[in-house]
């Protein structure tokens, strides 16, 4: 009897010390990461929602709780429809031309030539991604500005025989930012698709060649079907980043001329941090980006294979 009671006590204390260690481990290993993530993701989302119902302005003082920011967004802001339309056009065009199609072409082309040459061309296309945004933007401005010394004008005037210098930032500002962002977006698809193509077993291609498939048929029947998931992933990821990032636009055109490149993200930035300093209105506008942000991020999570990512731990002790 006494022995069993002792056993039970030992077992109970072992269990409780195990539980205690479990809690301590969780706090030690997982705690800091979740603290940081909570502070920089969760808290800001609520802060954003909270200040979107105030009149927080340049003086950083709240005088009233109000819904007028949302009224303004839905009713009175005349610029907003144009901004949204412009955003869709910018995101759609960049995504379809560069971030998927052109990136895919680069990946296919650089994996079809010798390894050294392929690496060389991929390195060239990584230059924009490797450069700090400020420097990359400077290069774009120097290339397309309206003076006769810009690269575009040098080429046009000396090689193509154009008489007058052209200013692409004035005549086709949208295309300038689509190209500037596309050059970077294309390299993202290029990297991911290159490694996806590399991971397709070489024997499949050998088999296809013996089965009578030419190079284009091999791309169509073997490569592309294997790239379905990476392409979906790239598509969603890049939609999200194009919707929300604006630093190249800010640096190259500043949203101009005459708001021609003012897409939604930069519109928010200008409202909040521009001369007007309307933080509350900016927060309300940002809320409408948080929503698609969350939805697309959820979608991305849905297509990733959670079961494969979570293999059952094989050690049970804490």
């Amino acid at each position, binding site marked *: 009897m006494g022995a069993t009671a002792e056993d039970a006590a030992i077992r109970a204390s072992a269990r409780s010390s195990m539980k205690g260690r479990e809690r301590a481990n969780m706090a030690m290993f997982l705690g800091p990461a979740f603290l940081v993530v909570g502070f920089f993701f969760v808290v800001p989302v609520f802060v954003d929602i909270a200040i979107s119902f105030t009149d927080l302005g340049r003086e950083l003082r709240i005088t009233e709780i109000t819904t007028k920011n949302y009224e303004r967004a839905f009713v009175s802001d005349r610029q907003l429809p144009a901004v949204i339309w412009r955003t869709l056009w910018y995101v759609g065009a960049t995504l379809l031309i560069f971030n998927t199609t052109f990136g895919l072409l680069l990946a296919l082309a650089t994996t079809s030539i010798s390894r050294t040459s392929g690496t060389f061309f991929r390195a060239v296309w990584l230059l924009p991604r490797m450069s700090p945004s400020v420097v990359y933007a400077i290069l774009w401005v120097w290339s397309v500005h309206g003076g006769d010394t810009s690269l575009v004008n040098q080429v046009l005037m000396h090689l193509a025989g154009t008489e007058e210098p052209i200013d692409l930032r004035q005549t086709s500002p949208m295309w300038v930012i689509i190209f500037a962002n596309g050059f970077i977006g294309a390299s993202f698809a290029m990297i991911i698709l290159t490694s996806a193509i590399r991971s397709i077993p070489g024997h499949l291609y*050998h*088999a296809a*060649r*013996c*089965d009578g498939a030419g190079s284009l048929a091999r791309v169509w029947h073997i490569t592309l079907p*294997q790239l379905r998931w990476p392409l979906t992933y790239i598509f969603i990821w890049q939609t999200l980043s194009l919707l929300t990032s604006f630093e190249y636009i800010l640096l190259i055109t500043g949203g101009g001329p005459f708001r021609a490149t003012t897409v939604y993200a930069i519109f928010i930035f200008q409202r909040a941090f521009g001369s007007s300093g309307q933080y509350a209105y900016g927060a309300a506008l940002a809320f409408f980006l948080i929503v698609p942000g969350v939805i697309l991020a959820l979608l991305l999570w849905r297509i990733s294979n959670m079961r494969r990512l979570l293999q059952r731990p094989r050690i049970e002790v804490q």
Partner: protein
Amino acid sequence: MATIEFRRIQKQFGDVTVIPDMSLKIDDGEFVSLLGPSGCGKSTTLFMLAGIYLPSGGDLLFDGARVNEVEARDRNVGIVFQSYALYPHMTVFKNIAFPLKFKKVPDAEVSRRVHDAAELVRVAELLERRPEQLSGGQQQRVALARALVKDPTLLLLDEPLSNLDASLRLVMRTEIKALQERLKVTTVLVTHDQVEATTMADRIVCMSDGKIEQIGTPDDLYRRPASRFVAAFVGSPPINLLDGYAADGRLIVNDHPLALEGEPATGEVILGIRPEHLQFMATGGLECRIDQIEPMGRETLYVADSPLGNIRVLESGAGARHAPGENLRIGFHPEHVLLFERGRETLITGARASVRQG
């Protein structure tokens, strides 16, 4: 159907020479196996046949016509890979039908031919499945069907059995052999497994370091290996190879003299004798002591310490009849002895050694 000929074929990858100079002729309808350890150039040879690699020099002839630079797609070869290389996103039907897609075969005929091919390798009930839903053996059969559906002039098998488990390998070995005999298609099998090569092929091409060591029937390779390499590679358990010195009608191995008959060989030689050709006997022969016993089922392998050095002796019949430490005598028939020239490592024909009597 086709005859194949390699005429002084060479293959280099950059600075690395994989095949220095290779000549080989394969008859119409023949089943030939390329046998050798990994890295010996046998797969490279197969890929040159398929048109995946281009020869760096020499001529590759199909029915006497040079095809060196003809694309794989135009050669009409069927190929089965070690990994089967089934297209993962296509059903079994689409996999088998894939080669017909590029031959502009009408739909009704595609369906008929796919069903025939599937019937042939007994996967007809799996046509709607995807490769990941098939077992290894089934994938192997589908890969065979895909290779055969286009009536290939040449069937290439690249280590087709090495991913299967032992019992299935046995079944597939017999099936592939039977299929080949029925279809009479010229077939080249690449393998590193001597049992696979000897059981399936009419002729074996034994390769090492990109060079052909010997071409011959399985029996030739076993009985009269042309080189030390072939002797060591073919046969299991492996042959005993002992360094010796031949002079004046005598062969000295490990200070022990043996009688040398026939054409006298001189100089440094290697004596080869297969474990199954050594017998324990009561009198005569050489004295030896059993060191180690390895039961192998219906045979028993002994490692014995003899005046010639450590040698392996294979005795048929289950159950060991001798114990370690036991002193015995062993002998062999002079006919079974192989002598190789050291250095060139080639067989010395006509010379025989026997245990010196008395």
